[in-house]
C-alpha cells in the first residue's frame, strides 16, 4: 500500500492512543471511593412502626415463588423460635429471603420487631468476593446475581457481614446461593417498590432514592428526638447500604452487629490484592537472581545424584 495510507494509519493510531490515554484520567479523578450510584434506590425501615404482622414475609414468599412455610405467615409462634441452644433467632434461608424477629429490649416496655433481608450494600462484600462475578450492583441499587454461573463455593456467605445469603443445600443437581434481590426483575427495575414495601400496612418501610431516604430519616429523628436513636444503621456501616434502619432502642439490642467497620469489606482485602502484582513482577527476577548468585562458580550440573553430601559449608 502507499505511504499516505500508512501515515494516515499512524496518525489515526496516535490520535486514538491519546484519546485512550485522556479518557480514563477523568474517570480516575472521579472515582477512588464508591458510595453507591447517585440515583440508587433504597428502603428506610422504621423499626418504631413495625408491628410484626409478617405480611412482608408472605408477600416476599408469593412474589419470589418460594415454597410454602412450615407454619402459616399469621402464626405468631415463630417469634418464640430459637436455634442453637437459644442463642439464635430466625435468619434468611433458601426458602425465606426475609424474616421478621421479635426482640424485648430492656429500655422498652413494648417488643420491637426487626425485618431482616439483604441490605443491598453500596460496595457489597458478596460481589467483591465472588470468583465468577455472579453478583451485580445495578444502577437502581439492587444486588442481584446470576445463578447460572454460581459454582457453589459459598465464599459470599462467608464474606457477607450481615449473614444474608443462604444456600440451597437441599438441592442435588442445581444448588445455588439464594437471597433477596430487591424484587429487581419484577418490580424495582420498572420503578415499582418491592413486594414487602408495597404490602406493609404500618408504613414501616419506605421506598425511594437512597439520598432522599437519608433526608427523611434525619427529619424523623430531628422531629422526635425522644423517640429515635441518633444513628441510621446502614448509612455508613460497611460502606453504606440501600436498606437502612432507624430505631427507638440501641441497635445492638435488636441483633444488629454494631461492631462492623464503616469501610466496605473489600478494604480489608486490598492490602493483599495490592501485593499480588508486585510479587508477580518482582519474584521472577529476584529468585532467578538468587539462583545466579548462589550457583556462580559452582557446578551448574543439576543431575540428581551428583552432589550427595555437598553444599553445606
Amino acid at each position, binding site marked *: 500500500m502507499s505511504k499516505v495510507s500508512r501515515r494516515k494509519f499512524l496518525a489515526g493510531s496516535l490520535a486514538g492512543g491519546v484519546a485512550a490515554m485522556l479518557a480514563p484520567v477523568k474517570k480516575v479523578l472521579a472515582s477512588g471511593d464508591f458510595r453507591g450510584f447517585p440515583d440508587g434506590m433504597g428502603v428506610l425501615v422504621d423499626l418504631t412502626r413495625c408491628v410484626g404482622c409478617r405480611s412482608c414475609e408472605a408477600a416476599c414468599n408469593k412474589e419470589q415463588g418460594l415454597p410454602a412455610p412450615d407454619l402459616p405467615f399469621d402464626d405468631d409462634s415463630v417469634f418464640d423460635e430459637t436455634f442453637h441452644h437459644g442463642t439464635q433467632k430466625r435468619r434468611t434461608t433458601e426458602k425465606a429471603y426475609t424474616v421478621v424477629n421479635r426482640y424485648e429490649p430492656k429500655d422498652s416496655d413494648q417488643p420491637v420487631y426487626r425485618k431482616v433481608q439483604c441490605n443491598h450494600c453500596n460496595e457489597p462484600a458478596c460481589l467483591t468476593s465472588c470468583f465468577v*462475578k455472579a453478583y451485580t450492583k445495578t444502577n437502581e441499587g439492587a444486588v442481584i446475581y446470576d445463578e447460572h454461573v454460581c*459454582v457453589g463455593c459459598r465464599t459470599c456467605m462467608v464474606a457477607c457481614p450481615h449473614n444474608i445469603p443462604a444456600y440451597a443445600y437441599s438441592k442435588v443437581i442445581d444448588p445455588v446461593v439464594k437471597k433477596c434481590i430487591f424484587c429487581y426483575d419484577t418490580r424495582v427495575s420498572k420503578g415499582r417498590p418491592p413486594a414487602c414495601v408495597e404490602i406493609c400496612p404500618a408504613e414501616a418501610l419506605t421506598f425511594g432514592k437512597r439520598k432522599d431516604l437519608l433526608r427523611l430519616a434525619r427529619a424523623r429523628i430531628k422531629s422526635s428526638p425522644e423517640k429515635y436513636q441518633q444513628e441510621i444503621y446502614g448509612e455508613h456501616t460497611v460502606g453504606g447500604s440501600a436498606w437502612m434502619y432507624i430505631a427507638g432502642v440501641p441497635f445492638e439490642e435488636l441483633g444488629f452487629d454494631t461492631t462492623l467497620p464503616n469501610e466496605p469489606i473489600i478494604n480489608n482485602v486490598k492490602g493483599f490484592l495490592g501485593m499480588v502484582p508486585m510479587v508477580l513482577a518482582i519474584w521472577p527476577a529476584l529468585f532467578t537472581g538468587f539462583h545466579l548468585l548462589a550457583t556462580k562458580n559452582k557446578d551448574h550440573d543439576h543431575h540428581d545424584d551428583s552432589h550427595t553430601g555437598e553444599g553445606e559449608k
Partner: protein
Amino acid sequence: MEKLADYGIKPLAGAKKPSGGKWNVMEKLFLGLTLDQYIGQVVRNKFNWLLAAIMAVGIPFIIYRFLFGLGAVTHASNDYPWGLFLGFGLFCMVPLSASGFMLGTACEIFGRHDFEPIERLALLNGLLGYFFAVIYLLVDLGQPWRLAYPMVYAWGPAAVLFLVGWHVAVYLSVQVAEVSTSFFEWIGWPRGKEFIRKGTIGLTVSGIILSTLHQGALGALFTYAPGKVHPLWYSAEFQWILFFTSSIFGGLCMVIAVSTIVIKTMAWRCDDRFKETLDDLTIKLAKGASMALITYLVIKIIAVAHDNEWVYLATGWGAWYLFEILSGVIAPMILLAYGIHHRLVWLVRIGAFMAVVFGIVLNRLNTALIAFNWKLYQEVPHVAEAIIAVTIFVIYIATYRFILNRLPILYAWKAQPDAVPAAVAVSASPEREQGTPARA
C-alpha cells in the same frame, strides 16, 4: 515386604532385571514380585486392612453425598458455609504441602544439592497435598462440574478466590511436571525427563511465585470476614503473611513427619543414600523450620499488638489462642532448637509433629471453624461430614504409599541392576549414582 526381604527377595528398583532383560509395566506395578508374592504381602500388612475398612465405610458416604446433596451429609448451615471439607481439607492440606516449593527452591535455586535425597519426597508431598485439597474442594462445591467456570467462562479477577483457583490449578500442573521426572524414569522414557529438567529453574521460580500468592491468598480469604473471625485470629494487614510464613514451617515439618513415618514403616523401600542422609537432612530441615517459626511468632505478636487485642488474651478465647501458640509454635521451637543443638533427631521429629498438628491444623481449624462466628454459636460438624473427611484422607494415605512403593522417590532408579560393574552403568546412564555398593 520385610518378610520377603528375609528370604532375599528385593523390590524392583531399576529398569532391568538381574538377568539383563527389561521389566515391563505390569511387573513394575507388582514391584517385581510374582502375583502370589505381591498379593501375599498386601494381605499380610495389617495397615492395608485398616485402610480398606475405613474406605469400605466412607466411600458409600461420598457416593451418598453426590446422590443426595451436601445437605444430606452436613448440617446445611448458612452461618458456617465452610465445614470440615474446606476447613481441614483445603486450609490444612495446602500449607502442609508447601514442602514442594521449599525444597525445590533449596535444591534448584540455591544450589543446595545436599537436599536432593529428600527433594523428591517433598515434591511428591506437595503434589499429593494439593491434589487432595482439590478433591476435598470438589466434594464441598455445590456444583463441582462448574469448577472450571472461573478459568474459562465467568471471570471475577478482583476476588481472592479467583487467584486461589487459578494458582492452585497452575501450581498443580507445575508440580505434576516436577514429579513427572520420577515417573519418566520409572516408565523408562528418558527424553521426557530431559525435557522437564531443562525447564527446572522456570518451573521452580513459578512454583515460588504461585506458592507465595496462594498460600497468602488462603489467609486473605478470611479478611473478607472481619465481623466473624475472632479478632485474635483475624488481621486485615497480616493475615496473608501469617498464612504464608506458617506454610513454610508447615511444609518443612510435614516433610520431617512424612520421612519419619516412611523410615519407620517403609525402610525396605528407602535406599542407602536416603537412610544415611536422613538424620542429617532432618536437622537441616529443622533449622529452616525454626527460622519460619520464629518469624511467624513475631508476626503473630505484631498482629495482636497492631490491632490492640491484648484484652482478648484474658478471655476464654485468649486461653485457647495461647494454647495454640504454645503447643504449635513455642513448644516446637524449643524442641527443634534443643534437638538441633544436641543433634537429637527424635526430639526434632516430635517438634515437627507438634508444629504440623497444633501449628498448622489447629490454627487453620480455629480460623475457619472454631473461632469463626465466635459471636454466634459453635458448630459441631455432622458425623457424616467427619467420616467423609477422614475417608478422603485415608485415600490420600493409600495413594501416597502406592506411589512411594513404586516410583523412585525414596530410592535412586538404577538403569542397570547392581550386579553389573559400575563402569558399564555410568556409560549407559549419566543420571546414575556411581559405584552403589552391591547389597548382600
